[in-house]
């Protein structure tokens, strides 16, 4: 069966430090991969999506970047974190268009 792993679960980082969040999918090949951010009590904001290795689409210009070095690996990065980068980050995948997403368990990032 397909599973998605996202880590770490929580992270506290100082302003100006780098960031790397990782997401991997098992049990499927060539998934569509997504990074979302969710502010407390708010909806989901799509940050990046990828339909294949090395193919990244950015939805919101910001301090973050994404990479897909392998078929089932999706990484969210920042060179220098800002206070406004705090939030809950969710990775998701879909294997067939229109069948919905499966989400990771999320990372709670606090920038101090």
């Amino acid at each position, binding site marked *: 069966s397909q599973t998605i792993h996202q880590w770490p679960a929580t992270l506290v980082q100082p302003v100006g430090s780098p960031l790397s969040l990782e997401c991997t999918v098992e049990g499927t090949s060539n998934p*569509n991969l997504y990074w979302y951010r*969710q502010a407390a009590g*708010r*909806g*989901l904001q*799509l940050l990046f*999506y990828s*339909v294949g290795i090395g193919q990244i689409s950015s*939805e919101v210009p910001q301090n973050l970047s994404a990479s897909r070095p392998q078929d089932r690996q999706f990484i969210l990065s920042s060179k220098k974190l800002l206070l406004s980068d705090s939030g*809950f980050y*969710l990775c*998701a995948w*879909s294997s067939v*268009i*229109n*069948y*919905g*997403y*499966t*989400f990771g*368990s*999320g990372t*709670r990032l606090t920038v101090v």
Partner: protein
Amino acid sequence: AQTVTQSQPEMSVQEAETVTLSCTYDTSENNYYLFWYKQPPSRQMILVIRQEAYKQQNATENRFSVNFQKAAKSFSLKISDSQLGDTAMYFCAFEGPSNYQLIWGAGTKLIIKP
């Protein structure tokens, strides 16, 4: 552009009651897909139910069912015999036939009271 609207920011009902969450959407597409997702306090996002627009029959998953009104562009979620574990944020989402992105509603916070 497609939009999804959830007009109920928060609802609360007693355990075992039935509750209906509203969702409306706007699109010019004829074929599309609609979803309800649940996000409990753990914040794990869980797919509850999905509906293909070309199917007239309303989707059902155990205690969860939808009332899909294509002409009215309405997609409500009914939860029967509500349980304490149903307490969560519920998000309605839309996906067109040829894009890779879900369009999300703002969510409804549902509280089930004992």
